[in-house]
């Protein structure tokens, strides 16, 4: 155990409580788990260090997640595009995925996670990649072309209101607000 040296300063704790949806316990637990990802020497100033993506993906909560790369990409504020995460990025991620986050925030970030080519809309290619993530990465676990066509057709029929063949943020948020499972499935609790 790190002992008293790896405690979060109190003002920072209060500030994070104010700026995120997390409770005090959750922030402290997040700090503990984040410092465990760092090598021993760097644990003192965990708040200002960036953790490389490979380390983040070792967390059990992300390890089994098919959207792990997208999650790291969306929440990382790193300038050189290596998707490394600082402690604040980590807290951001946990805040959005927490129980108390509101639906608009969750659906906004879900849209960004599902938008594989980062162009601000979900088109057919994004939907195809999304479905392949859901069904698994093996050859035999993917849907056939005909089934994929039928599925994407159905999805667009249900959610594309202005019939332009793509789903923009408002349409996505509308369809997710009527989805009863979204709030309970889009959740990560440490």
């Amino acid at each position, binding site marked *: 155990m790190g002992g008293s040296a790896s405690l979060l300063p109190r003002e920072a704790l209060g500030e994070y409580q104010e*700026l995120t949806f997390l409770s005090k316990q959750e922030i402290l637990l997040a700090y503990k788990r984040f410092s465990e990802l760092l090598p021993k020497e760097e644990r003192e100033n965990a708040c200002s260090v960036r953790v490389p993506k490979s380390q983040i993906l070792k967390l059990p909560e992300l390890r089994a997640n098919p959207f792990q790369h997208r999650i790291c990409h969306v929440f990382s504020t790193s300038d050189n595009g290596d998707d490394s995460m600082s402690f604040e*990025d980590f807290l951001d991620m946990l805040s959005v995925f927490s129980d108390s986050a509101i639906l608009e925030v969750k659906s906004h970030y879900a849209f960004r996670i599902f938008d594989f080519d980062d162009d601000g809309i979900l088109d057919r290619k994004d939907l195809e990649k999304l479905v392949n993530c*859901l069904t698994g990465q093996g050859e035999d676990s993917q849907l056939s072309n005909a089934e994929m066509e039928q599925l994407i057709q159905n999805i667009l029929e249900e959610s594309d209101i202005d019939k332009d063949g793509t789903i923009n943020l408002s349409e996505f948020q509308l369809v997710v607000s009527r*989805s009863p499972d979204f709030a309970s499935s*889009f959740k990560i609790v440490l």
Partner: protein
Amino acid sequence: EHPWSIAEKRRIRDCQQADIKYLSGWKQWKRTSSKSLKKVLSEVKELSSYLELWRHDIHSIEGKFGTGIQSYFSFLRFLVLLTFVIFILMFSFLTLPSIIAKYGIFNSSFAESPPKNTELHCTVYTPSGNQGLVYFYTYLKDLLSGTGFLEMTSLFYGYYTIDAAWFSILRYNLPLAYLLATFAYLALSLLWIIKRSVEGFKQNLVHHEDQFQSYCNKVFAGWDFCITDPNAARLKHRSLQYELQTDLEEERLKRKIADRTMKEKLRIYSLRIFINIIVIAVLSGCFYSIYRATVFSQENSNDVGNKNFQANLFVQYLPSVVITLANFIAPQIFSFLITFEDYSPAFEIRLTLMRCVFVRLANIGVLLFSLWSQISHCTTDKCKACGYNYELYPCWESEVGREMYKLMIFDFIIILAVTLFVDFPRKLLVTHCSCKPVQWCGLQEFGISDNVLEIIYGQTICWIGTFFSPLLPAIATIKYFIIFYIKKISLIHTRKPAARPIRASSSNFFFLVVLLIGLVLAFVPLGISIAHIPSSKACGPFRSFNTSWAVVPATVLGFPTGLQQVLHAIASEAFAVPFFMVICLIMVYLIALAGAHKRVVEQLREQLALESRDKLFLIRKITEAQR
């Protein structure tokens, strides 16, 4: 709240802090006080999360098995809390005053006056407690069947033979308290379940589509982000693939069904009618066997000459055994029959579930009905004067309470026995024996609907039985508590996860709807017992009244005349009919409003599609003009 990162929020907050100097004192105070209020509320929420029962267990189950199975365990936790609260209610208003009054603590006393206006023979009641030297197994038999030494304890209705209790100078009207406590626990259960189901209800009402979710829900909300175990993730991938493929196939099937010819339709419908007749026949068979078993058990357990321990116990438990067998066999028959009816898979599941629910709940109803037919079976005039069979059942409410107690104990024993003697050996067999038939059988799936129906069956027994046996909720709470751990261990060690994915939201709604059905079904026997069947004159708080309900009019007569007139006015037709008409008018108005809103939504959608086409048209024109 907006989707900004922490750094952006910090910047905005600093801007706001800078602006705060320019605001008036009132606005400053408002802002700081709302901030501190938010802080206090979040502290309270944190503290209350410590009190949450089994938080860590349910969280780990969620991580390993997904939200579908977790919803079952959350439901179980809800039932533990509900039965515990009911127990506290009954204990503090009924058992505690009775015990205090009977033992004379705190200067209390009680009045047990013999009932007036009744024949003497109705009031004779000699509970056969154990006197003298008894064998050890008699205690075991009494514990299991609620006779003997348990009969006069506060477990059963017969203990509460008190007309009024005095604590110093306060008079405590126990009969009224008994009735009101019953209504209170029923109302509390109803309100609590409705409150919990409001969320799911809104979603399921708004969604006019199939209850088994549309494609968008399956794709966008398909992945459980809380899964931590790689094995569970692999299974989830497979089940998602399976679910999507099944739904696509079902859609193709629906199109095929729409193209059916008249001859095929006729064949299918006549087949369905035939199978429904078979289902009704199966149900009648179950009901009849329960009726015969109850009658046989009542006739033979009253035969005191039968001293053989095991045979006596078996006869006592015969109705429970028959009900459990019926609850086990009937669902198997239903799932076999439904394959012939050629419905879509989603509808198949729903129909089978509804039939199973009906079987389980109706079985309890048939048991109670056969009990009552025994109790009210009157041939002699003396018997008719009492209104019930006073020779065999001097204290018939205790008898009903005893049957409910036996049902509950047997249900618990069966759950324990199935886990110990079926699941664990099966797991041992599958892991150590590698012959073909054993491996083909494989491990049992964790069937959520079966488990939930089991629990709801137990809870319905608890609701019905609490009126006749006020300490039954305590037994139910302990039972659910132990079942949580048994099911958790069984799930982790002996089950394989379901191939068919279960959705948390529809599961939650389904559980609560079936629970509500159970509660409403529990109202019926209770209503009949309280208002229709004459209460026993030999025991219990309602000795001096005709029926248990009669205590309420008697109390109302004791109110001042003004209040009496108001209450009579509310209960009269002059009030009820206009009230009913007003409610109907409000409902019609709301339905019309909903219809109008739906039309507006449709129009707005068309408008959006039109605008998008216009936009594309204009963009094309602009690009052409630029060339």
